[in-house]
């Protein structure tokens, strides 16, 4: 699971080692990546929203 999170984070950042990527695409289940991706995207949105709300006072 941790590997999935790491891979998704790498994808968010946009940089991933070719070897790791190959592994993900041969062994990983797509659904896991999609779910984690959506969750982490939500986290990112909430994070930015928190910053904005704090700055707005």
């Amino acid at each position: 699971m941790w590997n999935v999170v790491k891979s998704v984070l790498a994808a968010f950042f946009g940089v991933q080692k070719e070897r790791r990527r190959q592994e993900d695409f041969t062994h990983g289940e797509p659904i896991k990546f999609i779910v984690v991706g959506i969750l982490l995207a939500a986290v990112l949105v909430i994070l930015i929203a928190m910053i904005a709300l704090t700055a707005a006072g």
Partner: protein
Amino acid sequence: MRAMLAWVTGMGVSWLLAPAALANGWNMPKGVTEISRDIYSLHMTIFWICVVIGVVVFAVMFYSLFRYRRSQGAKADNFHEHTTVEVLWTTIPLLILVGMALPATATLQRMYDPSGADLDVMVTGQQWRWHYEYMDEGVSFTSSMSTPTSQISGEEARGENYLLDVDNPLVLPVDQKVRFLLTSDDVIHSWWVPELAVKQDAVPGFVNENWVRIEEPGIYRGQCTELCGKDHAFMPVVVHAMEQDEYDEWLAERKAEAEAEANSVDREWEMDELMERGEQVYGSVCATCHQQDGSGSGQFPALAGNDQMLDDVDWHKDVVVNGVSGTPMAAFGGSLSAVEVAAVITYERNAWDNDTGDVVQPSEIQEMLE
């Protein structure tokens, strides 16, 4: 290849010229408020960041294009990944952006703080003029473009402030925090004066806030910046900033006028007085659509020889005061005074050979407004 070189040179020159051009007054004005200067510096900072990034990226690009031409025998490499470089060119822009976001946030926070205003002005957009109300002062007026149509059509030489002149500018005191409350009677307009760095939409049914503290007396010009119909290009904003005492004098004069007018509502007005006043109001408010000679245009009906209007004075009054829903005809009961409405109706019923001889008294209109 010569073409390539020409292009490279051309691009280089324009990139060098761009900043030079900016120095020559083609740039955003620095403006006359603290906020406008903050915005200007944000603008210039992000501009230079873009220039630097652009120069670096395009330098690498054009170097590659020049150096690795196949016509010069370049053999292609095969690399297609480099983690370190990729991490770097993701991280560095991210840091630059955070660096930009911080001052932008700070400036925005100040722009969003209208508290402690010395003066409130209600700005109402109408197709196609602005209405200003000095809240708690009992002073209000409309401000319409005063550039004559003969200049627009080119029959007459265009003046220095072509399209940027109004009959009644908004007068404001310097060094005071002025809060604007913006709304609209019809469609969305946007009130913009570049040198005050205030641009805010006027949305019908809602009120937007903005504020300004002008530091130098002067006349500042801007325009409506939200497409609002056919005369969108012809509703300029002019702000006349004055020293406090000058402003006070102006305000007192305006107040006296308003009071006199309020007191005169009940008296019987003469035809001539009403016609004179009506012509002025008509020119500033009605002529953009119904034309100076009352001939109308397109969807805007002619008023000269308009039988429905001439036969039915009550209908005429109702239309001017309450507007016609579903058409651009606005309700002027809210923005014009009873005297102005009575005057303009009288004018419309007697100008351009309409000659009904009808006189509509301000008191009648006052009754309708109540």
